[in-house]
C-alpha cells in the first residue's frame, strides 16, 4: 500500500503517456492536456501545505523569540494581508483586474521587488566576470575570448574599436558568427545529451528502479 501501489501508479501513468504520444485517437489524444490540468489541481491543493509550513516556521520563530523574530512576524502579516485581500476584497476570480486592492499590492509592492531582485543580476554579472574570466589554462582562455568578443560585439564600442578593419573582422560580425556557429554546436551537443539523460531518467522512474522520491516503508 505504501510503496507498491504508488510504484504501479507511476509506472502505468508513465507508460500510458509515452504511448499516448503516438496515438491521436481519443482518449489518448487529449490525455496530456487533461493530466496537466490534474497536475495544476494537485499543485493548487499542495500549496496549502507549503503555506501552512511557512506560517509554522515563521510562527515558531516569533513564539520562541528567536533572533530576528520581528521579521518573521512581518512575513506572516504580509502573507495574511495578501490572502485576505485576494480572497475577499478583490472581486473573486477577477482579482487581478486593474484597480482591485490585490492588483494595487501587486503593482506597488510585488512588482518593484521582483524587478529590483532581477536587476541585482547586473552587479553579479560584473563580479562573476571579474573572478571567473581568467586565462588560467587553454579552456578558460577560449571561454574568456568568446565572452569578450560577444560582450563587445553587442555594443557600438566593439565596432568603433574594429572599424578600421575589413567588414568581416568587425566585432559585431565575429560575435554573430560565434553565436551562430560554435555556440550553436555546443548548445546542440548539450541539448542532445540532456535528451538522452531525460529518456534514461524517465525510464528509471517509470520502471520503478529510481524510487527514492517515494520514501521508505
Amino acid at each position, binding site marked *: 500500500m505504501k510503496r507498491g501501489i504508488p510504484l504501479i501508479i507511476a509506472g502505468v501513468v508513465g507508460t500510458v503517456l509515452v504511448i499516448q504520444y503516438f496515438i491521436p485517437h481519443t482518449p489518448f489524444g487529449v490525455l496530456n492536456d487533461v493530466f496537466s490540468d490534474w497536475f495544476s489541481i494537485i499543485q493548487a491543493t499542495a*500549496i496549502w*501545505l507549503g503555506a501552512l509550513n511557512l506560517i509554522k516556521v515563521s510562527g515558531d520563530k516569533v513564539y520562541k523569540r528567536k533572533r530576528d523574530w520581528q521579521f518573521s512576524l512581518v512575513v506572516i502579516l504580509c502573507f495574511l494581508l495578501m490572502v485576505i485581500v485576494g480572497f475577499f476584497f478583490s472581486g473573486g476570480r477577477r482579482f487581478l483586474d486593474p484597480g482591485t486592492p490585490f492588483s494595487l499590492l501587486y503593482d506597488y509592492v510585488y512588482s518593484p521587488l*521582483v524587478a529590483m531582485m532581477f536587476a541585482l543580476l547586473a552587479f553579479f554579472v560584473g563580479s562573476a566576470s571579474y573572478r571567473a574570466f581568467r586565462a588560467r589554462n587553454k579552456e578558460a582562455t577560449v571561454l574568456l575570448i568568446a565572452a569578450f568578443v560577444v560582450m563587445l560585439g553587442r555594443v557600438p564600442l566593439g565596432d568603433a574599436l574594429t572599424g578600421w578593419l575589413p567588414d568581416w573582422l568587425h566585432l559585431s560580425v565575429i560575435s554573430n558568427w560565434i553565436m551562430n556557429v560554435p555556440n550553436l554546436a555546443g548548445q546542440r551537443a548539450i541539448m542532445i*545529451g540532456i535528451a538522452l*539523460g*531525460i529518456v534514461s531518467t524517465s525510464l528509471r522512474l517509470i520502471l520503478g528502479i529510481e524510487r*527514492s*522520491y517515494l520514501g521508505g516503508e
Partner: protein
Amino acid sequence: MTQKLLTGVLLVFTFAAVSIAQEADISGQAVDSLPPPTVAPPSEATAKDTPNDAGSSITITWKRSPDDLARVSGFIGYDISRGTSPEGPFEKIGDVPAGTVDDPELKAYLDNNTVDGTGYFYLVEAKAKGAVSGAVTSMAVTSSQAWFNFGLINMFIATVFMISAILYYISSAKAGKKLYIRKIAGLEAVDEAVGRATEMGKKIFFIPGTQDMDNVQTIAGLTILGRVSRLTAEYEARIDVPVSRSLVMITAREVVKEAYLSAGRPDAYTDDMVYYLTDDQFGYAAGIDGLIVRQKPATIFYQGAFYAESLILAETGNSIGAIQIAGTAMPAQLPFFVAACDYTLIGEELFAASAYLSHEPKLLGSLKGQDLGKIVIIAALIIGFLIQALGIYNFASLFRVAGG
C-alpha cells in the same frame, strides 16, 4: 422634375445599348468594349480525411486556376464552401488568397471543424472581380480519428530503440556484468564537500531549483538529494533544504527521511530540515540570499531546474566562501554556474548523477544505454553528413519530427 426626365433618358439609352449588344452577340461578333468578366475555375478539387490526427478535420486540395497561375490582375483568391450533397446547398467556411510565383500548382485548405462520420462535399471557387467559377469534390468524405500517427514513425523507432538499449544494459548489469564509468569531477567532490561541512561544524544547503515536480530536472535533483542526505546522515552533518514548491517540499521530506532511515539514523531526521519559502522565483532568491549570508553554510548544492536566479544565488554563495556544486539542464543558466561555482554538472551529467553516486549496477546500466544512444547519434551525423553532402539521399528528412 429634371431628375425624372434624366432617369428616363438614361433608361432609354441603356435599353438601346443592351439591344445593340445582344444583336451583336447573335451575329457572332465580339464586343471590344464590354467583355463579360470571367475567371477560369480551379481543377481537380479533392478532399480527404486529414491523416494521423484526432479527427474533426478534412484536407481539401485543388489545382490553381490558370488565371491565378498567369497572375491575371483582378484575381482575388478562392472561397471554400461545404455541403452534405454534391448539389449543395454549400455554406462558405473559409477563403484562401491567390498564390504567388513561388507557390506550387496545388493549393490546400484544412477544414478543422467537421463532425466525424458525416460525409462532406466541398466547393472550391476561384474569385475574380465580378466573376466566380468553381469545382466540386466528387466524393463524400468523412473525417475520422487515427489509431497511430504514422507521421511519427521515426520517433517511434527512436523511442523503441532507446528504451531497449537502456533495458538491455540494465539487465546485463543486473546479471553481474562489470561496467566502467568515467570520473565526473563534480560528483567526486561531493564526499569532500560534505566532509568539510562536518569538520567546520557548519550547515549544508541543498537547493532543488525553482521549478515544480512537473519538471524532470527537479525530480533528478531530488534523487541527488537522496544520495547527498545519506552522506550527511553518515557524517552526522546538518542539511537544510529550503524549497520553492509545496510538492517539492513533500517529496524532499520523503527523500531525506528515507536517506536517514537507511543510514541507520532515523532519529536524527526532522521535518524542519525541509521548509517552504515561496513559489515566487525572485522572492525565493531573496529568501535564500538572506539564509546564506546569515547561516553561512560551508557547502551549497544547486541541483535542478534554474532560471535567472542562478547567478544571484551562486554569487552570494561564493561571497561567503562556500564550496558550491551546481547541476542543471538549463543551457542558458549553465554559463553562470560554471562561472560562479566550484563544480558544475553540465546537462546530461545532472541526470547521471544519482546513478553515479549510488553505485547501483541497475542505475549504472542505464548510463551505458544512454551512451549507446550517443554513438548512434554521432554515427547518424557523420554518415548522414556524407550522404547528404554527396547528394545521394536527403538523409536529414528521416529525422524531421512531424508537428514539431
